[in-house]
């Protein structure tokens, strides 16, 4: 487990146990709700969430040593009170946005610590965060950091940009070479998830009147962020192509059949509606087709409902026939989806 000092708490406040930390510092939640001197912390906590909801990173300069003594409680407490406000607001969208913004904030410090130009301890601390939080064994190699390929892949698969693909990385002897910036960027999603999980698993505290006005405002912000969508009935080109292949009596590969079945099930069609599509397949057997569709729908087997594979996977299987309307979607299920 990571042990850390004051600097680290300001940089990485999510590593502290919120309730325990407040107690250790001799504070109760009630004090924050009643003491006017502590109101600034509640205000700061609100700003921290509001700023995150707008996609901004909460800004605070840790290196400003003149400000250090007073800023420590303010910065750490505002984070902890923000969690309280988020729990009271109960808006999942806000928790996600806040977690991501806090992850991006921590990223800056982590990158600086990782380079560790003046401070070896910071470098060791950052390396330890990688190991303890993300199970990544990161090592310095000149101006670069190296990460075992398997560790890299577990994180890089969350990116859709081609530059993160293993083929577009410098790979040598089972290791991936990354700049300090790339190293920390690699873990942003996991860091966001880590913060989000900690917030979601925290207990919802008792509310106080002074929090209620801020919580109401947060609920309002959260509602604005929730979007509703419509989906057109038009099929994406990969699905149209698969249907065409079957209609022509040609062989559609196993992965093509899987894609078609899962897509149509995902769009709400029944097995009875889908099965006739496969009638022209050279190896068509009604019993097998129904059995396989039932497997996909989770009606038999392990009750696992299979979902339509990603565009990335479809491309790998040579089943992608993208058109401009695909518009950078990452799964055929998103084709024709529009925000209202």
């Amino acid at each position, binding site marked *: 487990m990571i042990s850390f000092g004051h600097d680290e708490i300001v940089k990485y406040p999510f590593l502290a146990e919120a309730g325990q930390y407040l107690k250790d510092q001799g504070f109760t939640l009630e004090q924050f709700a009643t003491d006017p001197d502590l109101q600034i912390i509640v205000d700061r906590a609100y700003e921290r969430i509001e700023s995150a909801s707008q996609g901004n990173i909460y800004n605070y300069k840790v290196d400003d040593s003149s400000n250090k003594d007073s800023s420590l409680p303010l910065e750490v407490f505002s984070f902890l009170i923000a969690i309280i406000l988020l729990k009271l607001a109960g808006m999942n969208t806000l928790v996600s946005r806040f977690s991501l913004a806090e992850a991006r904030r921590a990223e800056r410090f982590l990158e600086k610590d990782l380079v560790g130009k003046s401070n070896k301890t910071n470098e060791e601390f950052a390396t330890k965060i990688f190991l303890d939080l993300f199970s990544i064994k990161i090592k310095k190699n000149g101006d670069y950091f190296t990460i*075992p*390929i*398997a560790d890299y*892949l*577990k994180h*890089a*698969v969350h990116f859709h940009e*081609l*530059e993160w*693909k*293993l*083929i*577009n*990385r*410098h*790979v*040598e*002897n*089972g*290791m991936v070479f990354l700049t300090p910036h790339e190293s920390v960027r690699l873990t942003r999603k996991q860091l966001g998830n880590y913060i989000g999980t900690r917030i979601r698993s925290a207990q919802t505290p008792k509310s106080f009147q002074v929090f209620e006005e801020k919580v109401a405002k947060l609920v309002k912000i959260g509602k604005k962020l929730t979007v509703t969508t419509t989906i057109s009935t038009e099929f994406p080109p990969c699905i149209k192509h698969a249907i065409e292949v079957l209609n*022509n*009596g*040609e062989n559609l590969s*196993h*992965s093509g059949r899987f894609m078609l079945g899962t897509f149509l099930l995902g769009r709400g069609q029944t097995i009875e509606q889908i099965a006739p599509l496969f009638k022209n397949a*050279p*190896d*068509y057997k009604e019993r*097998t087709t129904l059995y396989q569709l039932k497997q996909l729908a989770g009606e038999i*087997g*392990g*009750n*696992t409902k299979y979902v339509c594979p990603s565009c*990335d*996977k479809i*491309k*790998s*299987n040579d089943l992608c026939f993208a058109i401009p309307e695909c518009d950078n979607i990452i799964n055929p299920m998103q084709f024709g989806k529009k925000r209202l």
Partner: protein
Amino acid sequence: MFEKDLKFLEDAFKQYYFDHFNLINVPDRASEREFGYMKFNTGMIRHISLKTDKDLHLMLMSNIPSDVFCSNAYYTFPSMPMSEKDWKEADIIFDIDAKDLKLPCRKDHTCNKCTSCGEIFVLQDGCPKCKSNKIEHISLPCDNCMAGLKKELSKLDKVLTDDLNIPANDIVTSFSGNEGFHLYVKHSQYNDLGSKERGELIDYIKFQKVIPETFGFKKNNPSKSSFPEFDESGWKGRVAKELFGSKSKKSKLVSKIISDGYVAYREKLDEIGKNSIGIKIDPNVTVDIHRIFRLEGSLNSKSGLCKLVCKDVEKFRPYTEACLIDDKPTEIIANCPIKFQLKNKKFGPYNGEKTSVPKYAAVYMMCKGIANSA
């Protein structure tokens, strides 16, 4: 399949299993693996747990399977339904199949069988007898296909050892028993990767989804591009060799790449990935972490040949060494328009005629669907 053919093949397979117990063993950590089998004319039976060679041999003798499979994955409860197995890890596997090489020779040793009326013919797209377009392609691979496969295997071996740092001793190559090779990587750093991550390894090995920037093209300032050098490790070195051929040609070709532009370079990289330097593995196999995979030493019902470990891939002659069924003379009615060779003996073509051939050739043709028992 006709009753008579079924009986003949079951007898032949049973005899093979009985005579070759020494070749068919459960792999290491057998109690953590899922086994499965198929019988002629039936579907897959899986979620079986076998702990010892004796269990396996008993299963072979009592069920006479057409194909036997074993998971590359390790589970806590291998015989439970998939969702309850508790997946622990899975060895990395690769499959290189002759059909994926798309070699020009393929059309010369492929015939078509109409799945509606059973007519066997070559060249035409539709059945000449009943005009159906439900056609099954039957390929009898040749030496050229094997040479192509061995070339791919050697490329794969290099990427695995050099780039992915897998010790050569941990890589086991086997002939699949039909027209491909399987390559196992045991107990590596990659064992606990899920499907998605394995998909990334596939793109790496197949050299696909490459961006020009990775190989030196500066989109905003092409003249400042810095293209790969011959002595660089990994794909950069391979790309340099493929694109430039020799050091003397490099500067001229670099100027051409820059003047042709970003998109042309991307297309060029895609093209060399697809047609030359990319390794033609079957992505569906590597990505599947719950697959049951043909067991070493068992017969492949698509050919009657044995899945066999190749100690020296270069010298391995699959259609001799993996042909282990005996040579008792057997009468069949063969309808095989293509010549083929097994155990250094040439067979065919046959035009729906009654003929006597060694049992291994009879099994081969019947498994391929181009002969019946006389």
